[in-house]
Structure formats: C-alpha cells, structure tokens
C-alpha cells in the first residue's frame, strides 16, 4: 500500500491545522513544533528558518516515503516554515495516519530524529535586544 505523502514548505508561521485523517485510519497523530521563548539561556523573539530548495523538499519527500514504508503508514504530511516565525508560533507540523496508534507514534519519533540529522533546514535565532 502506497502512503499519501505531502510536503509543504511555506513562508512564515504555519496556519492552523486543517488536514483530516485518511479514510480508514484508526490513528491520526499530529505533532507541532512551536518556537520556544529561550535558546541557550537567552530570550528569543523569533527563529528565522532557511531551506535549500529544491533539495529540502526532495529530502523531506524521500524521508517521508521511507518512514511511511517502514511503519506501514496510510498518510504522512510534513509542513515546515521558512523565514521568520515568532515565539509561540508553529514552525513545523507532522501529521501521520495509520491503522493503529503504535506505528503512528513510532513513525513520528523516527521522522523527527532523522529530519534533525539530515534534512537541509536551518534555524537562525533572533534574540531580544538589551
């Protein structure tokens, strides 16, 4: 079964989630990464994300396809910001659908771990002045 794989790279903070579970899914797990208020003990105002397109999208698609196959997912959707995202706003969303919860939860952990090691995406911290 081929999973539905979607990759969306968009400017600024992500809009509210509006995707719905794939038909027949028993588990729909949505993880959102939110910009924290501090980094390395300093007060953060925002993160500014960089991508290297089209390689970023290609690598995310490859990783999503691999994780979907390894965990038998029905669908996987990756959304990531580029540009400025203020503290408290969402910069990353991973949504996965599967028949049962175990594989969905495991897939989310695997995808994020791998993404943080290999995918060409960078965050630059914007600190509060003073």
């Amino acid at each position, binding site marked *: 079964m081929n999973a539905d794989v979607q990759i969306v790279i968009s400017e600024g903070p992500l809009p509210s989630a509006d995707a719905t579970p794939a038909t027949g899914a028993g588990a729909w797990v949505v993880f959102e990464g939110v910009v924290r208020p501090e980094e390395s003990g300093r007060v953060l105002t925002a993160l500014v*994300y960089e991508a*290297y397109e089209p*390689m970023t999208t290609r690598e995310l698609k490859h990783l999503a396809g691999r994780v979907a196959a390894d965990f038998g997912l029905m669908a996987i959707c990756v959304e*990531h910001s580029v540009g400025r995202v203020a503290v408290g706003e969402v910069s990353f969303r991973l949504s996965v659908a599967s028949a049962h919860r175990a594989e969905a939860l495991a897939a989310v952990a695997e995808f994020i771990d791998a993404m*943080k090691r290999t995918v*060409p*995406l*960078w*965050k*630059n911290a914007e600190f509060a002045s003073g």
Partner: protein
Amino acid sequence: MTVTVLLFGPQATLAGVRELAVRVDDEPATADAVLAALRDAEPRLGPSLAASRLAVNHAFVAPDQTIAPTDEVALIGMVSGG
C-alpha cells in the same frame, strides 16, 4: 580548479559569508578534496566539517564523487529543522 561552495545557517554565520570559493588542486576534484580545501580556507568551519556533507546539484554525494566545473556545490551541516 576553483569550486564555489554555498553555505547556510550556522556555517554561513561562522564563515561570515554565504559562499566560499576554494582552490582544489586535485584533478578531477572530489567531494573529499573540496571539504579539505574548505577546512584550509576557513578554519572556523573546521570543527563542523566532520559532521557535514557536500551536496552537488541538490543531492548528497559520496566522498569520491567528482565535481564538474558547472556543478552547484553546497555544504550541508549543522542542520536544525523541526
């Protein structure tokens, strides 16, 4: 051969530039040789290079991949997505 390497994120910040032109004497130039040339040209990148990889034309390459004069070369390291 001179190879221009694109830099991103913390590595661009460390080097103070978004791209670095390095001289590679090996013929043909390989990805490994380009990394070595980067280390020599910009010592501030040194500690991060061991965990970095080169991308050629938007794809990761093996250390022995040869680099053509028209290739787009990028240093992919210290990634921090998510």
